[in-house]
């Protein structure tokens, strides 16, 4: 079952057990969720969707708001900033589509900028799960709070979930550290199988785990692999290692108007985020890998 389908099932399952929970939709997902007094579909009105969530939160509810990434984060960005952040209320924003899951839909349905945009606002916890099991755990965990949470669903999935919170070291090394975010872990493991590099995994990118990165990065070289706009967390890495001479290679979706349709795998390869592309980038950055 895809991460998106798991989200719908999990949200429907907890509706009756969580009396504070309300789900606000703008058509996307409405046919996947049950009719329920706390499921509100406002039609194709994304500014209203965020405003309604804020009103519900001001009345003590815990809203989940869901749509495609660009229509959830970009179109109502000022509502996200003001109706949630400035009012000092929370919501769980759950996007679907990630950077290029909607590859055949074109640029209008793609938003690799999403994590950067939300990172620019104060108080957001940002989850980029790499497996449906991780997504469900993070979603359920988020229901109990009142904070601002973003969960980025993707159809890309690692072969298995990673257990544990925060930065999880999967392979120790005194050499370079490759930090894989969410669904980039599978390609990262394939690209580094025969290299003497450390590999760490991160599904929660904000707040950024600076202390854990300092502990995991034993050498001078860090490679950051993010499934959204390249460099989104580069400043966080720099801040974490500010007192240490270090080199950083930040991989991700390049900034640009990418005018191609086709399959997600083709987009991943074009952005050099498949195993082969990551390997080539590593060889350029790490002399020992060449």
């Amino acid at each position, binding site marked *: 079952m895809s991460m998106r389908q798991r989200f719908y099932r999990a949200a429907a399952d907890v509706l009756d057990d969580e009396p504070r929970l309300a789900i606000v939709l703008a058509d996307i997902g409405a046919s996947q969720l049950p009719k329920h007094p706390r499921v509100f579909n406002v*039609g194709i009105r994304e*500014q*209203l969707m965020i405003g309604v969530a804020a009103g519900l939160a001001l009345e003590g509810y815990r809203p989940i708001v869901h749509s495609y990434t660009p229509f959830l984060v970009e179109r109502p960005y000022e509502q996200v900033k003001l109706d949630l952040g400035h009012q000092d209320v929370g919501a769980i924003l759950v996007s679907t589509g990630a950077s290029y899951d909607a590859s055949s839909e074109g640029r209008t349905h793609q938003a690799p900028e999403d994590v950067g945009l939300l990172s620019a606002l104060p108080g957001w916890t940002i989850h980029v799960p790499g497996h449906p099991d991780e997504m469900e755990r993070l979603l359920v965990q988020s229901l109990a709070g009142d904070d601002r949470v973003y969960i980025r669903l993707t159809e890309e999935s690692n072969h298995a979930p990673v257990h544990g919170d925060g930065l999880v070291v999967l392979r120790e090394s005194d050499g370079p550290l490759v930090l894989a975010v969410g669904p980039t872990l599978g390609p990262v493991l394939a690209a580094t199988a025969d290299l003497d590099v450390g590999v760490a995994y991160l599904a929660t990118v904000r707040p950024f785990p600076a202390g854990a990165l300092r502990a995991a990065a034993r050498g001078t070289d860090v490679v950051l692999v993010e499934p959204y706009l390249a460099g989104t967390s580069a400043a966080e890495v720099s801040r974490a290692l500010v007192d240490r001479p270090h080199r950083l290679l930040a991989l991700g979706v390049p900034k640009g108007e990418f005018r191609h349709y086709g399959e997600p795998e083709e987009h991943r390869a074009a952005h050099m985020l498949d195993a082969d592309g990551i390997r080539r980038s590593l060889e350029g950055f790490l002399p020992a890998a060449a």
Partner: protein
Amino acid sequence: MATLTPLGYDDLPRLLTLQTGDEKHDWSSLSTIDVLWVLYDRVLGPDDRFLLSKGHGPTAYFAVLAAKGLLPLDDLTGFGTFDSRLGHHPDRMLVPGVEISSGSLGHGLPIGVGMALTGRRVYCLVGDGELDEGSNWEAVQWAGRIGLATLTVVAIDNGSSTYHWPGGIERRFELEGWSVVVADGRDHDVLEAAFAASTDDRPHLVVAEVRR
């Protein structure tokens, strides 16, 4: 606590002067003052919410909150200065009695829709110029379609929209399924009756006409 003694309508000019230090008052504040007074003096119940969506010119709002004992009078002096809780747009995290932070136009009404969905009675003040913002119409359309009867909007119509369309506000809300009353925005009894004319199956609009 002398500062929390409720005051009357006739005290409002003095409370405005405390904020501005001026006997002449900002028009955007004065356009709302009678509607605000009627709401706080005659209409709002203790569990109701009032949202000043049109956050511009909030000195009348602060004067009314202070007159009703919701905001200490001492706060009025120093309006807009660095350490003041009061500025040119209200901040709910700073000002007692303020339900939402506003200033950017077109945000209060969608938030009010969300509050009203919970069964809460919500009154939301917008300006005719503010209604230029498309986000309002997302809220007006949907509230009308679902018959959100716990929501009342009061639109201060002082013709401040650049492309002002006399009669357009009430016609458009009616088309979207709202009950609508047009009232003299200075006449307290007429305004009170206009608010009382809400129905139990539709959201309600009061157009408060104010000559500038």
